[in-house]
């Protein structure tokens, strides 16, 4: 829906993502604020922003797979691990540049994703979810036991990214790399979703039998969906590896896979904006309950802090449950309501 009084007169304007002058101004102001953020923020806030951005890249891939194509995956964290370890091995063992290892990590992970996407041609729903859980355990088993390459359960050191001899080892310096890559991945995801592939994915999600009848090759598009999703996961993994400077199997647990799916559901499956909202909401909520538990335990020192840590986790889970009960379509639906209200103001309908 366009703002009141705005009309498109050309096809190109109708198809563009940014359609009005005001939207362009808002976008530019947002980007300026985004890149100026490190200059007025604490190290912790910059670190949180980095983690959020990397999670957005990973979850965007899952959105294409689960949100758009309807293929539930509970093994996404393992593909992030594949990307992280590929980049770690490429840079630390073979001396490749980070800037070459980054896209190669995505490609390599995409190829691995193709292999694990093969079951999706035969099974769907809960059965596919179980197959992806198996994929997670298979990949982590290989990582844990292929000691000569991955360092096994001890992990491996990863060199920090450098530009012109300057090491990007601090949160502030790496922030710009992460943000630029995240913006590029968002643009790629957006264009996939509104193009031919995106329409095919949605058709497969809504009714795969009808889609096949209409000429959409399930084989091709399901595997393509897995490839794209795991490509995104690989990029996120590589970003994560060069951010921390170390990769370790415990950074990629089955719980992380479940949380990626949780972020997607909270944000709104099938939408890019929803994915971003979902990631930000859950990450910020996690920080908030930690601070809340510390504030309350400081106010009631007679009660053990463990109690407040546990209560904080209960609050965290309760917020998610309440959200799913009262807004099952996700944060993106709330955003749409807000936008509609703004655009129609002061008219009710």
């Amino acid at each position, binding site marked *: 829906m366009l703002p009141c009084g705005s009309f498109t007169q050309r096809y190109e304007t109708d198809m563009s993502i940014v359609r009005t002058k005001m939207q362009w101004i808002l976008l530019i102001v947002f980007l300026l604020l985004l890149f100026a953020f490190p200059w007025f923020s604490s*190290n912790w*806030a910059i670190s949180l922003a980095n983690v959020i951005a990397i999670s957005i890249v990973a979850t965007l891939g899952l959105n294409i797979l689960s949100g758009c194509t309807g293929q539930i995956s509970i093994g996404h964290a393992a593909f992030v691990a594949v990307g992280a370890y590929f980049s770690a091995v490429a840079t630390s063992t073979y001396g490749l540049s980070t800037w070459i290892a980054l896209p190669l990590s995505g490609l390599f992970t995409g190829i691995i994703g193709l292999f694990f996407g093969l079951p999706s041609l035969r099974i769907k729903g809960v059965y596919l979810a179980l197959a992806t859980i198996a994929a997670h355990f298979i990949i982590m088993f290989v990582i844990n036991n292929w000691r000569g390459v991955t360092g096994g*359960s001890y992990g491996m*050191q990863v060199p920090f990214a450098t530009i012109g001899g300057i090491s990007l080892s601090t*949160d502030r310096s790496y922030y710009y790399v992460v943000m630029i890559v995240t913006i590029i991945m968002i643009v790629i995801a957006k264009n996939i979703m509104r193009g031919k592939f995106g329409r095919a994915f949605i058709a497969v999600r809504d009714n795969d039998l009808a889609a096949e009848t209409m000429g959409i090759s399930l084989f091709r598009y399901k595997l393509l969906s897995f490839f794209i999703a795991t490509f995104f996961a690989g990029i996120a993994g590589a970003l994560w590896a060069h951010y921390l400077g170390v990769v370790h199997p*415990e950074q990629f647990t089955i719980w992380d896979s479940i949380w990626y799916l949780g972020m997607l559901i909270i944000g709104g499956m099938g939408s890019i904006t929803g994915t971003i909202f979902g990631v930000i909401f859950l990450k910020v909520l*996690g920080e908030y309950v930690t601070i809340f538990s510390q504030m309350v335990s400081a106010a009631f020192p007679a009660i053990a802090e*463990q109690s407040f840590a546990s209560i904080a986790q209960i609050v965290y889970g309760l917020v998610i449950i309440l959200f799913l009960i009262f807004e099952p379509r996700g944060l993106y639906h709330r955003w749409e309501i*807000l936008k509609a209200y703004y655009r129609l103001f002061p008219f009710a309908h």
Partner: protein
Amino acid sequence: MRPRRQTIILSVITAILIVTLLVPSACQVKGEQTIKIGELIDLTGPTSDAGQEMHQDYVDNIKWLNEVDGGFNGIKAELLWFDTAYQIPRVLSGYKRAREQGAVAFFLWAAGDVEALKPTLEREKVPISTSGTSPNTIYPSGWAYTSQSAYADNFAGFMSWLKQTWKETRPVKVAITGFDNAFGRSASVAARKYAKDNNVQIVAELYFSPAAMDFTTEVTKIRDAGADYAYISASQVPVAAILRDANKIGILGKVKFVHGTSSSPLQISRLAGALTEGLLYCDDNPVPSETNIPAIQRCNEMLMKYHGTKLADTEDVYIQTFTRSQLFFEGIRRALNKVGYDKLDGAAIKEGIDSIKDFDLMGITPRMSFGPDDPRGREHIRMVEYKGGKLVPISDWIYCEFVKPE
């Protein structure tokens, strides 16, 4: 329109929540000189059974330091704790937040946490004392210290004891089981290096998820492998559950079960009860019954002051945390004496810890030393057996090889 009003209210609440995140934590003691020590520990999550116990012990040590010892030369210590819930992003977030609040050193929990922070610790020059001691966390020596035998060293010490006590000519058969992570797999690093020299044959290596609750598969494989001993590298709940399942299939008593550090004997005895009879423990602390040792007397005094109780017969974590805290405090004290409060930073504390040699920690023997090349502090273990609900030493102190990563 109701959804619209709900949306506006939700948006306002969200904006308030985000703004409060950017406000400094209310926990900070404002206007008072304090030395802040960060603590990143699992108060929730799969290893919280041990984390909660250890956190309370750290709190007691800090309280005693402030209330009885008068702090560090009159300057109070402040513990900035963060629940990491066994998640690396929360470890990062907790670390950054604590650093922002002025933490100069940290107590850390899991080996994975230390590995994740290692490059950051190197860059920011922040020393930590960790209970998570896989070979990679403490070697090469850097900013991570420990005052208990490292996981792999603990198993190396156990193998040395086997060499001393195994009477048969055939190799002693040992099964290793534990968490499928750096902690659980550390024993196998020591096994690969030293098993042959100690006449030990590793007959099974079985790893499980930290969230696992049933170990019938593992104990069945231990039985089928014909193990004489089974070494468990896990926290207390899995240890107790393994004893339960071993008893269920009838191998308890036929196979000798042993557990290493980072499993609380107190919790194991509470969970497994009579099944712990004969269980072995590679202990690196004095046992509660050694009340002639001033350190044990101090632990009892602390427990009486803050909890109205004393060391239980199978308590060990309290003594472990006491040792870790006191050694770390000694390092901070030495740094403070050398550089003063205004120049106190991580590098000075590291220098202070490294200067600790043959330290007499209230009668605990053998004495402890640190150095730039040896961050371990504790290099000896003693075999202890659960007998009649008590921990009874059955060996002298055994030196543990410093097991370095492959």
